[in-house]
């Protein structure tokens, strides 16, 4: 069957099997390997992408179901060569070690900040509660999201290390 959808602002059309999962469509058909494929059972959350602005676990959405919808992946976070504040926050606050969970974490964090620009620590932990990180113990992920929130609110007090500007 044929499926068409918008991925990171670009219209794509491919011939697929009905059973193809969205995560494999993105990785294997579009070569967008930023979205990771982890547990395959909607537990780990590394495959989180946006569908029509909402985070979804792409291992549990058929590519066919995404037809006609707008998908945003981690590759679509940076705009015009400028990293998203969430991406900057993960760099500044050591929000990752191995990096496997990072794309899903960042997509959920971006969605959280869009709906709630100054979340509490509890709200951040709740937002990422469907995603597993085995390196950081989550503390630095929470800090990274807080950094991004402060950056966007203009209330950040520390200068990013290595920032040229």
């Amino acid at each position: 069957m044929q499926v068409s959808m918008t991925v990171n602002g670009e219209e794509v059309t491919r011939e697929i099997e009905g059973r193809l999962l969205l995560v494999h469509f993105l990785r294997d058909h579009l070569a967008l390997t930023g979205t990771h494929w982890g547990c395959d059972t909607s537990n780990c959350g590394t495959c989180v992408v946006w569908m029509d602005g909402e985070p979804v676990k792409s291992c549990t959405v058929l590519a066919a179901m995404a037809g006609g919808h707008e998908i945003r992946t981690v590759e679509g976070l940076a705009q015009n060569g400028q990293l998203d504040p969430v991406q900057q926050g993960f760099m500044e606050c050591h929000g990752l070690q191995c990096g496997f969970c990072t794309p899903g974490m960042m997509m959920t964090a971006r969605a959280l900040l869009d709906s709630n620009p100054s979340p509490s620590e509890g709200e951040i932990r709740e937002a990422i509660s469907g995603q597993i990180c085995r390196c950081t113990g989550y503390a630095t992920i929470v800090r990274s999201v807080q950094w991004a929130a402060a950056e966007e609110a203009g209330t950040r007090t520390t200068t990013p290390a290595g920032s040229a500007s």
Partner: protein
Amino acid sequence: MPVSYEDKGLGMQVPAPFEYERATSVDQAIGLLDRLGDTARLVAGGHSLLPMMKLRLANFEYLIDINDLHGELSQIIVEPGQIRVGAMTRHRELLESDALAATFPIFRDAEQVIADPVVRNRGTLGGSLCQADPSEDLSAVCTTLGASCVIRGRDGERVVTMEEFHRGPYETAVGAAEMLVEVRFPVRPGGSSAYEKVERRAGDWAIVSAGAAVWLDGGIITDARVGLAAVGPNTAGLPAISEALRGQPASEEIYARAGEIAAASCNPATDMRGTADYKRHLADELTRRALRRAVARVNERV
């Protein structure tokens, strides 16, 4: 570069091949089901069905995607004697509905502990009920609230109670050419509700859950309902508790009596989540807690 699953070899958890169809209306979906019979299955959020298909616990030749019907089937309509909720209403919408929480706080209690926020963006009320998993929390909520299910087929609609709807594990009253379109919750004055769940980790299936709904008149329980999840073949409503509580003053003694009945009436199995004895203990304790909290909510409102 397109890759098929055949090329990828073993170790992939993907469903067996099927034909994908997309429904454009309820009637068209029913027409497809009528033509394809039990070789076809509706898919809503897919967060129960697709994992089952990956594990080959479910196999269908056709999947009919009803997500385009979300707009039509996701209304939460408050009427004088009942609240009607469309079958495609997603967990997140149930969680965020102030109208639902005002009348039935049990919904917000339960939705906060169902899976995780990302899963709740997709999963639906109807999908949860049609999955008919005995551990499923929304089924226990609907049982507790004495909900009825509106099932539509080619020849019109019929309405069944929750007891009639769930026929056994993973079995419902919905026929091969029918569709659950709405769930109705009767509203009576003087009542409130609560939900208590114990799970091994955040967002997991329940070890045991208990829902309670109570109606009070001057401190006397005029009616009460308790529904349990994960301790029997279905999310069981317990009429014996209703009988024991009616006409009694709301008190710790009566919550304890209800807990005893819950523990004695349920039928848990020892599994990786816990022993049958532990689950009976939870059924007792969670029944008491849910009743206590539901009564407190009625009293807060007065």
